[in-house]
């Protein structure tokens, strides 16, 4: 029995590399895509951990690696005290009831040939939790809870708008009453006015269902709103990890600084008055990341040590970790 506030998910040095193979008769590995390059984080019960980063940073791969949807190359993932990495599919099956995922694309993540009732009800049936009339009743309750109507049970996904489809995805994720929901950019593909609805819904059900969230997004405003703690990813590594408010008030890592600076504020005067830090160039490739600190190629404060030594993730402030040789705001 876990007490509230206990660590629910402990990820330690998780690595996922994708080999690039080439060869004449036999394929040999010539390079690797270092999608996730040694990530450690902890998520407590009832907490929402936000994960931000730009495209190519590895956050989607990290989600999949944590849920064992893709086999990690190395590292450990402990869920409710149990190690997930290396488990057989059978063992994982019963554990999957506790961990569910919400996907980004509301148009691609629902099977267009299945009715809504089936989509939401299949998990229950698969795990033998309900059948027949009882199943239907539970599904309709879920649909109602996420803001859909009972008669939507028999409709197909294409009959719904993006926001509604995302609600269906949420209902599906909630069906098994999991403890952990990994939400991979759940609102990025939605209109702004609908985003607010879905975010509010996610927050409401969190309290009601006793959920913990790993919330991945690239919209910093949204992430700050929903998260208790936030981890910032860059090229497969966590560069900063802190409480939500402190990340925005006193960011330590230069990349976090740049990210925050890049987000335009919907307030013209304040926007213009800000000091902007615009990064030059593009994100390097995860196949051949820069040596030392991965960020040094774009960092305005980089020095020689940054090109050689990879900084460790340390608490430069209480409960505020960052991986940088020249931390800001400390």
């Amino acid at each position, binding site marked *: 029995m876990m007490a509230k506030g206990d660590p629910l998910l402990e990820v330690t040095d998780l690595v996922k590399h994708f080999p690039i193979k080439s060869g004449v008769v036999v394929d040999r590995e010539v390079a690797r895509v270092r999608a996730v390059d040694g990530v450690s984080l902890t998520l407590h019960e009832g907490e929402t951990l936000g994960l931000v980063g*730009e*495209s190519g940073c590895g956050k989607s791969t990290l989600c999949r690696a944590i849920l064992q949807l893709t086999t990690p190359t190395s590292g450990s993932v402990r869920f409710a005290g149990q190690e997930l990495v290396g488990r057989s599919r059978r063992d994982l099956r019963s554990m999957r009831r506790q961990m569910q995922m919400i996907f980004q694309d509301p148009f691609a993540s629902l099977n267009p040939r299945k009715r809504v009732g089936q989509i939401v009800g299949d998990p229950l049936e698969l795990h033998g939790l309900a059948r027949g009339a009882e199943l239907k009743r539970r599904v309709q309750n879920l649909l109602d809870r996420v803001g859909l109507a009972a008669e939507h049970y028999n409709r197909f996904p294409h009959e719904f*708008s993006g*926001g509604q489809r995302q609600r269906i995805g949420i209902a599906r994720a909630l069906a098994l009453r999991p403890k952990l929901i990994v939400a991979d950019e759940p609102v990025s593909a939605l*209109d*702004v*006015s*609908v*985003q*607010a*609805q879905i*975010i*509010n819904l996610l*927050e409401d059900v969190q309290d009601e269902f006793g959920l913990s969230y790993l919330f991945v997004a*690239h*919209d*910093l*405003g*949204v992430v*700050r*709103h929903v998260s208790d703690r936030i981890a910032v990813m860059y090229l497969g590594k966590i560069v900063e990890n802190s409480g*939500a*408010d402190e990340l*925005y008030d006193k960011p330590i890592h230069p990349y976090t600084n*740049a*990210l*925050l*600076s*890049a*987000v*335009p*504020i*919907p*307030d*013209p*005067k*304040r*926007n213009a008055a800000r000091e*902007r830090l*615009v*990064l*030059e160039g*593009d*994100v390097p490739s995860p196949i051949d990341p820069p040596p030392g600190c991965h960020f040094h190629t774009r960092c305005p404060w980089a020095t020689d040590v940054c090109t050689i030594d990879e900084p460790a993730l340390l608490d430069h402030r209480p409960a505020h970790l960052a991986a940088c040789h020249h931390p800001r705001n400390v």
Partner: protein
Amino acid sequence: MSGVILKVDDLRVSFATEDGVVQAVDGVSFELTAGEILAIVGESGCGKSVTAQTLTGLTRATNARITGSVNYRDRELNGLSDHQLCDVRGEQISMVFQDPMCALNPVYRVGDQIAEMIRAHRDVSKRKAQARAVELLRSVGIPNPDRRARHYPHEFSGGMRQRVMIAMALALEPDVLIADEPTTALDVTIQAQILQLIDRLNRERGLAVILITHDLGVVAEVADRVLVMYAGQVVEDATLDEIFYAPKHPYTWGLLGSLARLDQPRTARLVQIPGAPPSLLAPPSGCRFAPRCSHVFEECTVLPPLESRTGGMHLDRCWLDADEKAHHGGLRTRGA
């Protein structure tokens, strides 16, 4: 240079589809002044992209019906033939689109695609056009432009591709650049670079820009004037400051209120706009925002005209009286 260069009057665009006639744009009017950045904001389906593309006739099709006036420097574009429009496109009014990966032809080199555009309008040799292409790439900040001009689109990153698109759009020094969601598909740090570029081009060359976006932050960053669109119509037309500090339409209030803002303390709940936009197959009579509006009253069964009810240039499409608007508008901007 000052003065109105583009005047759109009562533009209506409808498409005949299997399900019926979709009235995508239903009476849009606005003006664009030389050197101005006009942002058109709205959510998906509001008609902003269709409006932008109709200005240069890109939405012409057998099932499309376009009425109204698009007057560019005293020339009526709506009445021009396709052939005549080809002269306007690229040379006077240029466009940049959302996803540069798809918007550039993958089998041609980038330099060749720019050169193609130049040679379509000017009688220059291929070599000259290619040299000019390299110059253009340099002017938008692409490193090693002579080498990069020989690369294919997929060899560039998203931000670089968008720079290529912008370089191509400006090859013939048009007066107007229409940018249709130019940064939506880009990361936020790259978006900052592109917006900086657009801003610079606007200031240095007096380039007028029509910027289509759904992101109010982007609007705050670069726009001079703002049009808010909803369900195929303009619901508010004002300067940047007016939109953010004294908005006059409930939809604008809703948009501003529903943002998770970084510059303000966290709220317990985001203010949400209930419901969803109406179908454009059979738009409701009366105010189109009424079904979702928390200030709706009996007048709203009649469609309000887009006008300024207090004199001045700030237009809105709402029956509420001025005091109410001032009150609620002020609330929103204080982040309540």
